[in-house]
């Protein structure tokens, strides 16, 4: 794609809509996403109506646009009744112009119950599902607190492949006790199943999770940096060989199979997020950018929406420096890297040439002088946080 070489308006990368469904059947011990378990029946219709009202609110903020991608994330959006998904998608079509090739993704947990919704989602307009298989080992799935077996997950994934145009096969690796050899075998098996896209996340111990407490007391041991680096390298090697190279640190795709919605985040485009705890980034008239975030607690969010039309509780006008750092943080995760010219045009500042050259010489970044483009090398990707800290001012 010639993105970044034509004209540098950030509108180029599209306009996306994120829809958050904040409920799960059970809380996975590693997870710090905005997900909540409810023991009473959730009034799904009320929440869907709330999402629609918030979409109307965002239409007023962002104006008439062409929606290029929609993403139902969670929590577990595969717990939404298909009619609710349909209601939300219909509202988007009502409010905005929608691109003919729009990508509409939904994150699905692969239990047999949830798989029964797949056809309904397809009918509602979903054309891509990201399936949280997470591990191909039943013991490990248990330890991860998952509600499905390997067998159930693979069946759900196969079904998804028949119903939707595109899928993603999601795994968590660098799990407690995982060896390079075991991961090799597991990943090879997954590569035989995938259908063009995989998200392969190294397990991260997040604050305020059950895993963090176990980790701190020494009851949960995760691979050290050296092993994690080796696991990362194996991942690159096998996915490259299988024709599914990384286009982002943890995301792999065959040709043209990238997640357009996630690319929008990484290319620092515009998106409106609706639902409890959702985030948005919208451009303002004078070239500024505003970050919005919503109330995280689902019922409080709903009450806010019902009262005011929006659950947004924080609005931050990002300074040029903040925007520049966010741009680097996101863009350098991509294999394609970032355009230094675009950086300069958007934020009126320069990345230190000296730092670029030093990191280039050390083999951490590729520097294409004619295109004025920098991108992390394979070695660079492993230590990206350090690179970004050096490049950001």
């Amino acid at each position, binding site marked *: 794609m010639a993105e970044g070489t034509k004209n540098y308006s950030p509108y180029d990368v599209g306009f996306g809509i994120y829809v958050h469904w904040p409920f799960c059947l059970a809380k996975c011990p590693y997870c710090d996403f905005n997900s909540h378990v409810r023991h009473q029946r959730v009034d799904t219709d009320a929440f869907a109506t709330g999402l629609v009202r918030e979409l109307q609110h965002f239409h007023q903020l962002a104006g008439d646009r062409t929606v290029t991608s929609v993403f139902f994330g969670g929590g577990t959006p595969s717990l939404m009744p298909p009619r609710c998904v349909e209601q939300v998608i219909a509202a988007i079509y009502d409010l905005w112009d929608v691109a003919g090739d729009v990508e509409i993704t939904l994150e699905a947990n692969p239990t047999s119950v949830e798989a029964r919704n797949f056809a309904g989602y397809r009918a509602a307009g979903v054309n891509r599902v990201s399936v949280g298989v997470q591990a191909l080992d039943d013991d490990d799935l248990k330890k991860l607190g998952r509600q499905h077996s390997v067998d159930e997950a693979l069946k759900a994934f196969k079904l998804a492949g028949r119903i939707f145009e595109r899928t993603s096969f999601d795994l968590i690796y660098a799990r407690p006790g995982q060896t390079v050899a075991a991961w090799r075998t597991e990943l090879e098996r997954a590569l035989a199943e995938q259908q063009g896209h995989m998200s392969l996340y190294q397990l991260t111990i997040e604050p305020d999770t059950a895993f963090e407490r176990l980790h701190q007391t020494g009851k949960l041991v995760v691979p050290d940096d050296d092993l994690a680096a080796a696991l990362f390298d194996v991942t690159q090697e096998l996915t490259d060989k299988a024709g599914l190279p990384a286009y982002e640190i*943890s995301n792999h795709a065959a040709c043209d199979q990238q997640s357009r919605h996630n690319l929008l985040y990484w290319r620092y485009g515009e998106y409106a997020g609706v639902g409890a705890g959702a985030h948005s980034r919208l451009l303002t008239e004078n070239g500024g950018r505003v970050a919005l975030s919503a109330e995280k607690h689902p019922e409080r969010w709903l009450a806010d929406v019902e009262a005011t039309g929006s659950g947004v509780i924080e609005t931050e006008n990002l300074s040029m420096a903040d925007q520049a750092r966010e741009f680097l943080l996101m863009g350098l995760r991509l294999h394609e890297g970032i355009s230094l010219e675009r950086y300069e045009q958007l934020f009126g500042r320069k990345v230190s040439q000296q730092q670029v050259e030093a990191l280039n010489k050390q083999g951490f970044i590729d520097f294409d002088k004619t295109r004025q483009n920098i991108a992390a090398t394979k070695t660079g990707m492993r230590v990206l946080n350090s690179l970004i800290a050096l490049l950001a001012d």
Partner: protein
Amino acid sequence: MTKISNIRNFSIVAHIDHGKSTLADRLIQITGGLSAREMKQQVLDSMELERERGITIKAQTVRLDYTHTDGEKYVLNLIDTPGHVDFAYEVNRSLAAVEGSLLVVDASQGVEAQTLANVYQAIDNDHDIVSILNKVDLPAAEPDRIRQQIEDVIGLDASEAVEISAKTGLGIEDVLVAIVEKLPPPEGDVDAPLKAMLVDSWYDQYLGVVVLVRIIDGELKKGQKIKLIATNATYLVDQVGVFRPTIEYTGKLGPGEIGFFTGAIKQVADTRVGDTVTDDKRPCEQALPGFKPAQPVVFAGFFPVDAAQFEDLREGMARLRLNDASFEFEMETSAALGFGFRCGFLGLLHLEIIRERIEREFNVDLITTAPSVIYEVYMSNGDKIELHNPADMPDVVKIDHMEEPWISATILVPDEYLGSVLKLCEDRRGRQKELTYAGSRAMLVYELPLNEVVFDFYDRLKSVTRGYASFDYHMIGYEQGDLVKMSILVNAEPVDALSIIVHRGRAEQRGRGMCEKLKDLIPRHLFKIPVQAAIGGKIIARETIAAMRKDVTAKCYGGDISRKRKLLDKQKEGKKKMRQFGQVNIPQDAFISALKMDEN
């Protein structure tokens, strides 16, 4: 003013953790010095730092009102004393201001090293002593055995030792009775010219310089013009009062009383501890003998991590100095660290305390360079240089010889740890002078080079004897030594702030130790970093810090970029706590931690 026969002045001496502070709290509580609501634990340890570390740094005083069983009202003045050898001078001057001591011994632990060191200081000051067996509430308490031990080891009559629990309050009344009945009242003449001992002084934000005094003869009154004999300065007394422990203005103090006054005194340095306070017009005939001022023996550089904070640092140091005349500093510049100060301290604990107070009270993150003693460098051309800073070491070819300070150390240690202590002293180039026994305790006298002691000897001694050794020392003078400057190179660049002066025979071991420590202290970088120790051009030790293998956020937080940005901010914040040397960031605490030796 209190009738002199109804005054009792005393200190409490004890080994650490035997309950000195808890007993003081109880005494204050029971005599009504503070209401239950005002009572927080360890009232006299007023600095945040004292509470946290559980040590007393500054002597504190409190006046207690007590009605005896015979109906007479007594005034009891307690001076609390610090327990660490760095502040030994302060213990001594506090003891000099009172007539008696409570010797507190934990009834399950028994007599320990500091019990001995402190009680002997009290005996040297001609104190009458009341023995107290504390913690009798503990099941492990053996008051009879410990009573016997006090008699055998210290040689005090302990037959009337008071059994108490400072924790539950049991026996506290008996302590008060014993103070009145066993300790002598002070002596003094109210009609004689004013003569008072300057016990301590400090700077108070609201009152200015506060001077703690013990009146020997005469009266100290509000509005009086007084003279400090040693400095020959005169001041008008502004306020006179006592601590209960909160301030109470009394207008005057008479013989035997302990209290404070304020006047227009500008800085603590204008007052000398041990000086005699007298009336300007009617001075006393003879001044008190006085104390020698405490001399700094350890020097180190303080530099702000963020060079922009130099002025804040300067101000913080000046403010602390107001309150602590034993702490010295002068400006220093270093090629790598920029502007900072070279500071002198009484010992390492003193250094750490000043450092922590600057960081906390003035919000300046500090880099502290390797502590050093004062070396005397004799140059071939006949010049003599006092070297406080390894960075200033002259070119070796121009040096004729160098001398270093030596001390004589007295160590009391239970038998079973003697072997480890002997080894420690020998490792530190010690020369044994004496080895005698007192019961199951050995008393060792060793001569040691101060530079082997100053840094972590006391910590090591405590750890090899599990806290059962006491340690005291005094300077004996300078001696020639085969001393060299050892430099540390990080990524092939010398880091001056890490260089030390060391005896040639110890250089390799120290160098290896420092390189190993730095390997753990310096975080991994994008490239591998050699860490070397060198004397002149010769490398004597080397370690390598491997390159960073992985530092990346794997997970996708979707559109929550703010969170990532905040993580980046935190990472940058963390970097601010480091100082860059060439391409390498060294954390601020590495400079001191690298020197700590874990000998085995």
